[in-house]
């Protein structure tokens, strides 16, 4: 989207230059439209170059390397002792990844994580944004700052803070609850996933709330006023008038949260230091890390990374298609 934006002004400014040129210039430049076209292309090139340079160096080359790695392996057949040769192994690493129960259970974990996290995140952020927008909250800017601040804390620091709050023996939270005769194990078999969801919520709720709040600012006041005049209370105006109008941002937030969730890594990696309930292959990203650095199996790690990438792209594409179809269907009914 970004690269096409700078091109638009070039289209509108180029024709006047061509038409105001006098006769002599007209002679030199054999075809003014061609000149304009060339300039336009030059501007496009300059403005889009940074994007493409970054796209190639930080995305396409690594992805290409991963794909290449996933098809090759250093092999020595039989027991594997002796000198190794790099050979093409086709889809062998992919077959291994897709037949690995630990990888599939990692995918399952992430799907469960998404099912818990995304609805809570989107609804929570939206509710907070609507509250702020409705003017119920006093000290609005302070509330916004307070909610946004956790997002400025790097993920690893956030995980450390929560690790401290979750670990029995040092956590003040567990101590206070313990005094009230409530024993909680935040890092138990069934509680560890909600605990990770909680960290992610804490970090990202404020950020997404700001996005929703900005979208709500763009909602025409007349529409809301009309709804109020028609007898809608504040709750009804929020749910039935404002929310549908910010649906594009809801879709965007859900999509970004989803992509981010599939790559779940920092929080479980750090919590695994303290909780044996988080296995070394807890999420697909942790599986990839483990495959590369514990198992020293780079083609397996690369294959798992490509599988995760394909899953992410396919699911994102599916969600986008689905939402745009719903949109157009709704517009058709209007």
């Amino acid at each position: 989207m970004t690269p096409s934006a700078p091109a638009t002004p070039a289209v509108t400014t180029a024709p006047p230059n061509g038409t105001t040129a006098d006769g002599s210039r007209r002679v030199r430049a054999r075809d003014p439209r061609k000149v304009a076209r060339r300039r336009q292309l030059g501007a496009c090139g300059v403005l889009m170059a940074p994007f493409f340079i970054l796209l190639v160096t930080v995305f396409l080359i690594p992805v290409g390397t991963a794909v290449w790695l996933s098809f090759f392996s250093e092999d020595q057949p039989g027991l594997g002792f002796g000198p190794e040769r790099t050979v093409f192994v086709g889809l062998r690493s992919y077959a291994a990844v897709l037949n690995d129960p630990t990888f599939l259970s990692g995918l399952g974990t992430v799907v469960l994580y998404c099912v818990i996290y995304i609805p809570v995140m989107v609804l929570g952020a939206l509710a907070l944004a609507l509250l702020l927008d409705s003017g119920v909250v006093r000290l609005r800017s302070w509330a916004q700052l307070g909610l946004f601040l956790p997002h400025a804390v790097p993920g690893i620091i956030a995980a450390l803070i929560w690790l401290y709050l979750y670990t029995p023996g040092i956590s003040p939270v567990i101590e206070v609850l313990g005094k009230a005769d409530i024993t909680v194990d935040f890092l138990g078999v069934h509680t560890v996933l909600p605990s990770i969801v909680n960290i992610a919520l804490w970090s990202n709720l404020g950020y997404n709330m700001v996005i929703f709040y900005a979208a709500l600012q763009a909602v025409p006041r007349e529409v809301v006023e009309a709804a109020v005049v028609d007898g809608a209370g504040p709750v009804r105006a929020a749910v039935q008038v404002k929310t549908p109008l910010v649906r594009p941002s809801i879709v965007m937030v859900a999509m970004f949260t989803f992509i981010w969730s599939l790559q779940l890594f920092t929080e479980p990696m750090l919590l695994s230091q303290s909780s044996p309930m988080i296995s070394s292959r807890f999420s697909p990203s942790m599986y990839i890390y483990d495959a590369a650095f514990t198992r020293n199996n780079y083609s397996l790690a690369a294959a798992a990374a490509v599988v995760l990438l394909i899953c992410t792209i396919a699911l994102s594409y599916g969600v986008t298609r689905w939402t745009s179809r719903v949109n157009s269907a709704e517009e058709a009914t209007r």
Partner: protein
Amino acid sequence: MPGRQSRRSVLAAIAALPLTGTLGACSGSGSGGSGGTSTTTRITFWSAIRGSQEVVDAFNRTHDRVQVDFQQIPSGGQGGYAKLSNAARAGNAPDVATIEYPEVPGFAIDGVASDITSLISDRLRARLLPQSLGLTTFQDRTFSVPLDIEPMVLHYRADLFDRYGLTVPRTWEEFEQTARAVRRKAPDRRLALFPTDGAMNFAAYAWQAGAQWFDTRSGAWNVSLADRPTRHVAAYWQRLIDDDLVFMNPGDSRQFDAQVGNGLILARLTGAWDAGAQMNERPGQRGLWRIAPLPQWDPDRPAVGTHGGSTFAVTKDSRHPEAAMEFIEWQVSHADALRARLSSGASSAYPTVPDLVAVGRDAFDRSYYSDQDIYTLFEEQAHAVRDGWVWGPRMTATSRVMQDGFARASGGEGTIIDSVRDAQAGTMPDLRALGLSTSEHST
């Protein structure tokens, strides 16, 4: 000497040393060296074992032709193995690396540990305990030289055994009865721990019972983690856990330190090395502990497995394999090497070269174990180590998956044998992706 013994010293070393990384190592691996004297060969050596610096210093003092540059690295699980793998990938692994037994096949397959069969002198070969050399030899090719062999033994609290009128169990059946007696007589104490991070402990139990998790017959890795002896051992420990006769928590934890420190645990089932580690870590318990052979399934045919132990490999990047081998041979077989190692603190690691046992015995302060001659016990047990055990090609990963299962089992989800089966299921794709021939049994 596995990670746990040297954990503290290693952590201290990490804190004290800046992470010099591989730069220091690769700059040292060149030949020639000091002052242009072309007769001196410089080699590099990485280890996490405590006392290695002292050994290297002693070697450098007494040798002119070969000089060793030592680098203390984190223990394997703490990143030492990842460091070694990455260095080998970058082509600057040290000449000599320290690898624990279970990881030897993995590093041999990856080509990090080179085939040193022809470099090992017949003299050294004859002096090494055959069971230990068997663990580092595949298809008649040897990939590393063992330093110590650690038969699993029973460390027990003699004072508490006396107080509760218990006798030292000779069989696993007696062990179970003893565990029941402990729980009956002292409800807050337990006889032992089933460590959730103890895949290596469980492997030793299975090894003793006659299991064969991996074998390399007919040129393939035949994997059978859940074979009949293992199922038997798993069912045994499951019963102890279900009847609440043993603790089940991580062994490398403050919780376990407290359990041992407060006398809540009456026995530890670990390798011979743990006698020295216990001495260093809990000087206050002097005179309370004794050591006995591991309980047996069949006392008429005693067998044990090992728990811990290290080996030295010459890596593929070594430009002076003969010099590296000379250093390794001195390190594992010379009395001065062991004396130097022991100068850094007590150790009960049992040497694979029997001539060194006397050195270890003389240096060991017996009073902690009330004058018990633990070295004689270790000697008997070392000879009882069941021959033919083979570690797998990706043992760190296999153990981790198993331990993930143990941890879940301690939280009430799944059982020990489930964890073992999960470990096999999580290992096979790895081996296939490495291009190895495999076959699966006893799933």
